[in-house]
């Protein structure tokens, strides 16, 4: 039983969800908004991992599960694989996607309002930097939920410094 939805619907849904949590529900508390968005992503990742591991044999170790996330899981979600995977062999993995789909259409230019004073420019830049961060909380939640469902407790954070390329740092809890 498969239903299909156009990708722009998913993009709009995510954008609206982030905007609702940041601007209306938790307007002055970005940490709470971030953790709620992360929790939504967690449940989505949890359910998706159940679906995408259906036909596969079981994973033998953490590296197998991370490779599953990089290849199959990412292909199902974004139609491409993770471009680069690095590890320090001590429980930290860095997944790098050179063109992360959900932020690829975001405008990254903070100076949209013509000439601003120095103070306003900084505030505008901070606000513009926050928006992709909030979207990335959702993606981190998705990865965390998927890994938790596979039995791997971990913490996931995103590094948005070179958008649209995005790195996710996964730290496995011992």
């Amino acid at each position, binding site marked *: 039983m498969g239903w299909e939805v156009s990708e722009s619907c998913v993009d709009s849904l995510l954008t609206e969800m982030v905007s609702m949590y940041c601007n209306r529900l938790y307007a002055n508390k970005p940490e709470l908004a971030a953790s709620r968005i992360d929790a939504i992503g967690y*449940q989505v990742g949890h*359910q998706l991992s*159940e*679906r995408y*591991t259906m036909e596969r044999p*079981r*994973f*033998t170790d953490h590296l197998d599960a991370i490779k599953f996330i990089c290849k199959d899981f990412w292909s199902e979600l974004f139609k491409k694989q993770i471009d680069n995977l690095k590890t320090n062999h001590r429980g930290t993995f860095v997944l790098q996607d050179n063109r992360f789909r959900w932020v690829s259409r975001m405008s990254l230019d903070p100076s949209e309002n013509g000439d601003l004073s120095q103070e306003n420019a900084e505030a505008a830049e901070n606000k513009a930097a926050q928006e992709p961060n909030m979207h990335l909380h959702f993606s981190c939640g998705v990865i965390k939920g998927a890994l938790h469902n*596979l039995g791997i407790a971990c913490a996931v954070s995103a590094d948005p410094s070179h958008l649209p390329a995005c790195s996710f740092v996964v730290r496995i809890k011992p």
Partner: protein
Amino acid sequence: MIVCVAVVGHQNNPLYIQSFTDADDSLKLRHIVHCSLDVVDERVNNPKKSGPTLNETFLGLLYPTENYKVYGYLTNTKVKFILVTTDLDVKDADVRNFFRRFHAAYVDAISNPFHEPGKKITSKTFAERVSTIVKSFGMSSTR
């Protein structure tokens, strides 16, 4: 004839248990399902005994009791499906097929946004799909 199917979560919490015979047996069936969880754990944690089938989802015949055969299936997310049947000549392929369809129904039930992970599955659609799969299992093996 299948008498009971059960879905057990990764902390050995029951998520769905359904018996297809009279209610008198249901306690005994629950007991059988409970005992089979130990066998599943043993199979998974003893790689030397299992040999090449360590990573398969289908665990095969867990143990035969006096009247029943118990089959197990372990998913990647440590969710166990247990099947109790009274058939004496069940084909392996039939059971695998059953578990494949059951897994598909389970995944669809889990993807319901109103379902809370870890709680029991209360979806009627899932119950109907399971009874359809159970009925068609009975038919395909009475050739």
